């Protein structure tokens, strides 16, 4: 009996690890773009969706999964920059408020999602499975630790290190941090504000694209995939205080674990229906915003 419970726990832990690392990538994308540009980018859900589709389509063409991921992330990075140049930057220059930019990001999200849906419908790829095969590496208490686990966790580690080095050991990173804390002063100090902004969006897009690509390997995708994930991405970011890399990743893991392990626990011992899963994320966001940092407060 106890063995069965342990087996379930391990299964949930493995599941949580995988999902958390993906959420972390998405949350880092969101946090990064928010910190530097003050835009709550709802459109990140579509970056993830498109990243997923790109990677999936690419693997189906026979390109190996690793290259596909690179293709997907670079393309989405470029997309993110384009969206900023076309929509966010002009509005920002006009003096739009954060709320107006948020509305713009929602509008962008809608446009991208439904324009893509039209195309996907036309091409018959509303639902898609990638060519990636999940292969178990070793079995822990009957649950497989798969190549996807290794892949996503290692990508997360590499990305985190890369981001850390970028932000704290390079001049570009320093400029990004300057822009995040005080845009006016950064501009006066001679920092090429628009170039740094472009770089930021590119990285943000790459992160979202990676999340999407890995997600496509994890499960079959559809045009609403990103939208479903948006909640978790936002929750992860917000719990992490939209602050630093480690906190964001921690937030993602908290969300990932509470979503899987937490719900399993509630279900097993308290009979809570698993369909309540999203409520966990919502409660987490709610609590974090209300009880949390004063950064969200004030005008």
């Amino acid at each position, binding site marked *: 009996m106890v063995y069965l419970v342990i087996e379930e726990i391990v299964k949930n832990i493995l599941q949580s690890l995988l999902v958390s690392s993906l959420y972390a990538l998405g949350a880092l994308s969101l946090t990064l773009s928010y910190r530097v540009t003050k835009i709550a980018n709802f459109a990140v859900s579509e970056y993830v969706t498109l990243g997923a589709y790109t990677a999936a389509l690419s693997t189906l063409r026979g390109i190996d999964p690793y290259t596909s991921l690179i293709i997907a992330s670079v393309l989405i990075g470029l997309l993110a920059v384009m969206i900023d140049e076309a929509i966010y930057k*002009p509005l920002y220059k006009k003096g739009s*408020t954060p709320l107006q930019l*948020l509305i713009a990001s929602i*509008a962008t999200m809608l446009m991208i999602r*439904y*324009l893509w*849906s*039209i195309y996907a419908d036309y091409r018959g790829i509303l639902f898609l499975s990638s060519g990636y095969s999940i292969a178990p590496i070793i079995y822990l208490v009957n649950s497989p630790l798969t190549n996807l686990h290794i892949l996503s966790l290692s990508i997360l580690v590499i990305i985190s290190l890369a981001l850390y080095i970028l932000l704290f050991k390079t001049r570009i990173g320093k400029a990004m941090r300057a822009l995040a804390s005080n845009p006016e002063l950064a501009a006066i100090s001679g920092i090429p504000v628009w170039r740094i902004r472009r770089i930021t969006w590119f990285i943000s897009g790459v992160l979202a694209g990676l999340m999407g690509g890995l997600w496509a390997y994890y499960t079959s995708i559809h045009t609403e995939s990103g939208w479903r994930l948006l909640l978790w991405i936002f929750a992860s970011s917000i719990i992490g205080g939209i602050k630093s890399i480690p906190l964001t990743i921690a937030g993602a893991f908290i969300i990932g674990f509470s979503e899987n392990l937490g719900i399993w626990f509630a279900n097993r011992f308290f009979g809570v229906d698993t369909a309540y899963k999203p409520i966990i994320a919502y409660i987490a966001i709610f609590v974090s*915003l209300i009880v949390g940092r004063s950064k969200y407060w004030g005008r």
Partner: protein
Amino acid sequence: MLALSTNLEYGYTGIPNFGKVFFFFIGAIVSAVITANMYNSVLGIEEGLSAIAATKRTEYSIQNPVFATEVFILSLVLSVIITGLFGYLASYPALALREDFLAITLLVFGEAGRIFVRTYEPLVGGVFGMSGIPNPLNFIQDRALSSFIYSIFVLFMASITFILVERLVNSPFGRVMKAVRDDDLAAASLGKSIAKVRGQVLFISSAIAGAAGSLFTFYTQSIFPDDFIPPVTFYIISMVLLGGAGNNIGVVLGAVFLSLFERFTQTSTLSILGITLSLDISYIRYAVTGLVMILILFFRPQGIIPEGIVKTPLYKIIMEREKELKTQPKTG
């Protein structure tokens, strides 16, 4: 009605209620629950969520129009009050959060509520929803006629809403609302309680949304949680932005315009006109909603009709006097 309600909160008072669809939903839920329960107790139905129960309820309403009407009115009134109360509760987070985070919070709150109702079966049938919420006009055999009459009634309610909102907004209270939106610190320093104003505004606007929800549920004679998703809120917000936040006529225009657009881009309507498209038209509708929002933000953030001055009765009197003075011949 929903657009006017949003305009009241956001256009005049600066509260971005991105959870608007949830208040719409609450109104629908209250009406559905009350109606179903009343019919169920009269008919002695135990399994209220089944299709048989739904049919029984509808049949009963056809035979008993007076009862149906009583239930309808009771549901409507209760929907208004209860949704208003929920709205008042929502004003608490509004106290301190910055506007874009407030938007996210209310969005989250609304969606959480919807998922909860969707999962918790006993309330309104969970994912499957509930049918058989009989319209009081069911006794009229001609479907087209009863729908038409009901539409007139809804139009009537909308007009009342418009008049009420206009009166509210063109009054000293309207000025306070705008003050809270534009410079709450100044308003507070002049002795206006921001929390109270927000609470009152959200109560009223949510009450309106509740009424809309009630009317909607009697129109469709059913309630399905998946009808009340966030894109609906975005749709309403785009109406407000299009028409012009801060003025009611514009908002009504925005609502009419977008509704017409939605109607005319339904596959059924297009096929009447002889146009058939190979792709799913609802995608275009949402894509256009997004496009419209972007275009508005870019080119005309004030909307089609920009905001005007608060026309309080005193203001009108002063304007009249000025006109009189101007038309008087100069003496001496």
